[in-house]
């Protein structure tokens, strides 16, 4: 069915920004303009006072299927995605078994098709079992539909293996994504190493654990010419090194997570396990650096690192509880806060959630160009709401933002020309 979205402010970052109508037909963007001729029987969505933007693209989610369906399934994860305005999500391979072969990739794609909500694009493992030793069958993974490779969460510690992975990936033009963490430096740590960890008596993870791996990866990207994408950078040092690498023409892109530009290690006081994630919450200096990086384009992408965990897992002690928080349903509001703060223009903020990630992975997404897939999100940028984790579509509730009053809400999410989420009725 054709859909006419009328009267909204259409923002297609870098291409168009203005009040117009948008017509979707046969699953594609058919036209944008002042007075779009709508075919008869068209479904009409009035969008006056709202933003009409490309469906968001999240390069970093954990959907836990197969293996940990009690935390999240591909269906529940996709429902969470579209409720947060994301129409395309890239799933990290740390499932059980690890997504290091085409059978798992195909299984995930099949589950995503059955859910029919969002475009779920798997990321394959770099090494077999993400054990950091032997390369996974990256060619097969790519052919089966993986859009990138990563051993996220179990970073490749051997610089030689990483070098080989980057070289090998060149054959498929596939981005290599690294969670930058020196596991020796970080060993046993559960929060940022600093004054707060000293006071709380918690083992720390120094910024240097991230910085040394960013430095290594940049050096290897320079050596190999690979497409390097740095997951969730969180330190001032990372931002500085990425900025410098880009200025020298090294092919590197970087993402930051909303929690890393919104809150600091102070949130760990009281031992709230929902403030435990990896990389850990850092200091105000780091938060400022991340914002500067977003502003000047050093950081291309805002990604959630959506990492669901069951309540009983997060009810353990701070040192025992798993790392990670859910993020899909709060990302937009936390990103729009950067607009209010003057860090990003509205268009740039939308870009970090759509065009930015699409470019980083070379996905044919994140745009409202005529002829492209009709993945569209309609937002009320002013609506205030209170974060209530019990209302999340995700199976998990682990967020440090519970009870926060935030601004900016997704009203309608359209994937491939089909309304998959409507705030009034839920996902469809």
């Amino acid at each position: 069915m054709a859909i006419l979205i009328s009267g909204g402010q259409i923002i297609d970052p870098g291409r168009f920004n203005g009040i117009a109508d948008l017509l979707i037909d046969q699953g594609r963007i058919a036209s944008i303009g002042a007075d779009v001729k709508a075919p008869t029987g068209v479904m009409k969505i009035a969008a006056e006072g709202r933003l009409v933007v490309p469906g968001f693209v999240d390069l970093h989610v954990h959907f836990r299927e197969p293996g940990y369906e009690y935390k999240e399934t591909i269906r529940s994860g996709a429902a969470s995605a579209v409720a947060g305005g994301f129409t395309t999500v890239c799933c990290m391979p740390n499932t059980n078994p690890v997504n290091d072969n085409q059978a798992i990739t195909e299984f995930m794609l099949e589950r995503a098709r059955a859910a029919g909500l969002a475009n779920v694009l798997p990321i394959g493992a770099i090494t077999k079992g993400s054990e950091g030793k032997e390369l996974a069958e990256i060619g097969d993974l790519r052919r089966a539909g993986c859009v990138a490779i990563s051993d996220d969460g179990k970073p490749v510690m051997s610089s030689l293996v990483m070098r080989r992975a980057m070289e090998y990936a060149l054959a498929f033009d596939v981005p290599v994504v690294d969670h930058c963490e020196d596991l020796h430096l970080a060993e046993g740590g559960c929060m940022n190493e600093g004054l707060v960890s000293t006071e709380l008596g918690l083992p720390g993870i120094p910024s240097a654990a991230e910085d040394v791996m960013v430095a290594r990866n940049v050096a290897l990207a320079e050596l190999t010419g690979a497409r390097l994408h740095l997951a969730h950078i969180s330190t001032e040092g990372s931002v500085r090194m990425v900025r410098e690498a880009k200025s020298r023409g090294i092919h590197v892109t970087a993402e930051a997570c909303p929690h890393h530009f919104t809150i600091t290690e102070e949130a760990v006081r009281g031992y709230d396990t929902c403030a435990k994630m990896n990389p850990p919450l850092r200091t105000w200096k780091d938060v400022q650096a991340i914002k500067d990086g977003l502003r000047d384009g050093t950081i291309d992408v805002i990604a959630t690192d959506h990492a669901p965990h069951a309540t009983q897992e997060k009810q353990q002690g701070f040192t025992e509880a798993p790392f990670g928080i859910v993020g899909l349903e709060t990302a937009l509001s936390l990103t729009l806060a950067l607009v209010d703060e003057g860090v990003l223009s509205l268009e740039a903020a939308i870009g970090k959630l759509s065009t930015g990630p699409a470019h980083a992975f070379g996905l044919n997404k994140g745009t409202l160009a005529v002829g492209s897939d009709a993945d569209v999100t309609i937002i009320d940028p002013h609506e205030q709401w209170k974060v209530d984790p019990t209302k999340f579509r995700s199976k998990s509730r682990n967020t440090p933002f519970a009870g926060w009053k935030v601004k900016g809400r997704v009203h309608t999410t359209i994937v491939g020309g089909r309304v998959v989420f409507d705030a009034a009725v839920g996902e469809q």
Partner: protein
Amino acid sequence: MSLKRKDLLGLAPLSVDEITLILETADSFKEVTGREIKKVPALRGRTVVNLFFEPSTRTRTSFELAAKRLSADVINFSPSSSSVVKGETLLDTARNIEAMQADIIVLRHPSAGAAEALARGVKSSVINAGDGWHEHPTQALLDLYTIRERGLSFDGLKVAIVGDVAHSRVARSNIHALSKLGAEVRLAGPPTMMPWGVEKLGARVYRDLDEALRGVQVIMMLRLQLERQGRALFPTIREYARLYGLTAERVRLADSRAIVMHPGPINRGVEIAPEVADSLSSVILDQVANGVAVRMGILYLMSGAS
């Protein structure tokens, strides 16, 4: 008088008045522990549960004695003998204990923050008997009591805390309390064992132990956990003992009436030379004795009994 708080989780949140109240309350119980019949009925009908997730003889026994001398009923729970090994969470274990009407839960746990998490989840009073590297408030209070008993005043008192500060809950609690009370806190130990930014808690870090000891009235030695040797924190026990062990010669650098403390158990010949541990300046056994009186005072104040 009683403490206006449900739980004793650490010394960081306590005011000077609260610390003083605890020490003064302990005075009257010190007198009780010196009697032939070492028992008062203050906590008759109350139940104290010792919930210990880490091996401990000294602290658990001290709490048990303290509770018994106050006529409370005492139950000891330890993970090997309870359902914890069956996968029950700390909170569930504690709620079960609470359902049996425990008035006070004394918790020792390897994870920092465990006492705080427990305190949020149960109505019983929670006393932190050591949580990870975070705090061990009753140990620091008995240390303060022992210092005060020696007639030393805290204001301007020079105290050296020596050893593995990073992994020590005893050190953290003492740094908080001593700096609040106006003492000058000096820290010495391998830089690998100094936590980030510890100066901001009100202490001064010394590179050299001799320098740190000069003129101090109190030397507080920390236990070296020997298993840390493999963790690149120090090369050998031999070198550690040479650089950071308290010898009789080093004691002479301190004030002539300086006292030597140690939370125990001690590694003789490692962080403390045997002749120092057994010398007249050593108050290590006074600390143990005072532990009971101080914990009686704390249990009494926490129970709200009058």
